[in-house]
């Protein structure tokens, strides 16, 4: 990422607040993600990491503050949300592939129906992205016939097929057996090297060390610490960060 232009802001979040009923889950989040940046978010369970990234593509609505994706503000207007979602990829902890569709159909669903790309072209693009996650040989299988790691890689390819400006990952390896975590992380590292903008919620600290530009630590709905990986792991500033790191490392 050395001399790549890092000035363009892909996602900008200002003064974000969110409540679940009385529960104040996000308490004033400010965050800017620049083009080709990799941002890793970690923090204890229940600190609001999922809520935060789900706000970015409008899976959760926010109550206060501004979220802009490539200059377009996320409003409550349905058309506006759908447009932003088509530009923001998301990979879930539970993969959430469509079990009634083949791998290839999973990948082409969005391009064909949302982007109105002709089927043949969408399929060609899908096969290319399957190659990128190293499972082009599984194109005609159904999700139920794949291992967890393969499913998650299909899910990543599905997001890539929409040619998104940014990819959001919500604990993409937490539901995987240890031996499958590696294959998924390898794919994510490749994507990082290709300059894809990513926000990743994960506790895989080696991933953070090797590719992240910034590591954020969240606790109780706030971003407590924001640092380069080096500083974050070697000399954390905040007491709570230190405690957290001592627990997971």
């Amino acid at each position, binding site marked *: 990422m050395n001399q790549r232009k890092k000035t363009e802001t892909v996602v900008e979040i200002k003064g974000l607040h969110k409540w679940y009923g009385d529960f104040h889950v996000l308490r004033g989040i400010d965050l800017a993600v620049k083009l080709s940046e990799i941002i890793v978010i970690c923090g204890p369970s229940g600190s609001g990491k999922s809520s935060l990234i789900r706000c970015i593509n409008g899976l959760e609505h926010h109550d206060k503050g501004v979220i802009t994706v490539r200059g377009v503000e996320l409003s409550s207007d349905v058309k506006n949300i759908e447009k932003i979602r088509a530009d923001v990829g998301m990979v879930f902890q539970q993969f*959430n592939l*469509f079990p009634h569709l083949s791998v290839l159909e999973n990948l082409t669903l969005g391009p064909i129906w949302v982007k109105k790309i002709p089927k043949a072209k969408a399929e060609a693009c899908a096969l290319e992205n399957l190659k990128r996650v190293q499972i082009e040989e599984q194109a005609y299988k159904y999700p139920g016939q794949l291992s967890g790691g393969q499913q998650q890689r299909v899910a990543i390819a599905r*997001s890539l097929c929409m040619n998104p400006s940014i990819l959001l990952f919500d604990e993409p390896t937490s539901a995987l057996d240890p031996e499958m975590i590696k294959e998924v992380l390898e794919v994510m590292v490749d994507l990082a090297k290709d300059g894809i903008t990513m926000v990743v919620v994960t506790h895989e600290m080696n991933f953070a060390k090797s590719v992240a530009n910034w590591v954020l630590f969240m606790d109780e709905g706030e971003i407590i610490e924001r640092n380069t990986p080096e500083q974050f792991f070697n000399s954390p500033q905040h007491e709570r960060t230190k405690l957290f790191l001592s627990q997971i490392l």
Partner: protein
Amino acid sequence: MKAFFLKWNRAVKWSRKNLFSGPLSTLITVLLMVFLFKTFFPLFNWAIAEAHWNTTAMECREGGGACWSFIGEKARYILFGHYPRSEQWRAVFFILSIFLLFFLGQFRRLWSKYLIWACAVFPFVGTLLMRGGFPGLELVKMEDWGGLPLTLLLAFVGIVVSYPLGILLALGRRSSMPVINALSVCYIELIRGVPLISILFMGSVMFPLLLPEGVTISKVLRAQAAMILFSSAYMAEVVRGGLQAIPRGQYEAAKAIGLGYGQTMGLVVLPQALKIVIPPTVNTFIGLFKDTSLVFIISLSDLLFTTKASFKDAEWLGFSVEGYFFAAFIYFVFCYFMGRVSFRIETEMSR
């Protein structure tokens, strides 16, 4: 010879193991055999061995067995009611087409958009054919329809229309829009709380009162509407069960790639949900098919009505058992076909 002994040996072994494995199982086996013997043979004697096939009513009464001659004599009336004899080919064509659709529906290779379209469009084309009233086809008023075509029409149109209606109602019931949600819930609960008979009565007695003077709607259509109203409420609950089985992650993944509400439902959620509920769906369809026999109370002459009416012929009095057997057989054939097609669809789809 050797092969025979081998088989015999295996049969003896099998029955030792499964039928006579202990005193209790031996007792049950013997009792069941006696029961089968006592019921099956008399039934066989009555229905086949001592039956009369092509005789007069007098000859039937002299012998003891079933009088299938009665069915031979009355089949045309039972099957077609008062549909004009000269136009009967239209009714036959209608019935055969439905058989054909069922038959084709069993083969996976033939499953396609075309077959679904054929099933969706056929009832309306079939109705036009039966009714006629345009150059080339003489008009047969709906009031003159009867027997099997009427039963099939009520069932088939009922199914084809109430299925999509039920889906819409189920979506409405899960909608977050208060008005749509409230309307769907009210409709479903109201209809489910009322017996079909009362809806049929309301359709035939009250509905005409609401119409402006001079406008009339055929009794068949009113019965048809009642059947549709009734079964779409049940369909809605069946579909709702399927919708509830779809995990939230599916909606989220669909939304996350930018699919709108209609696309999310149509491409991701409904295909999965409807597949899960194939068995209860077919259950509802079979129920609807058999419920068509209730239309006799608003004096439509469906299959069961014509069957009963055929008992009244003074010359052929006293053969109602044979008549009911015949009607039951026809109902069974269609319900069996429905069950079979659904089973095929289920096994094919659970690859």
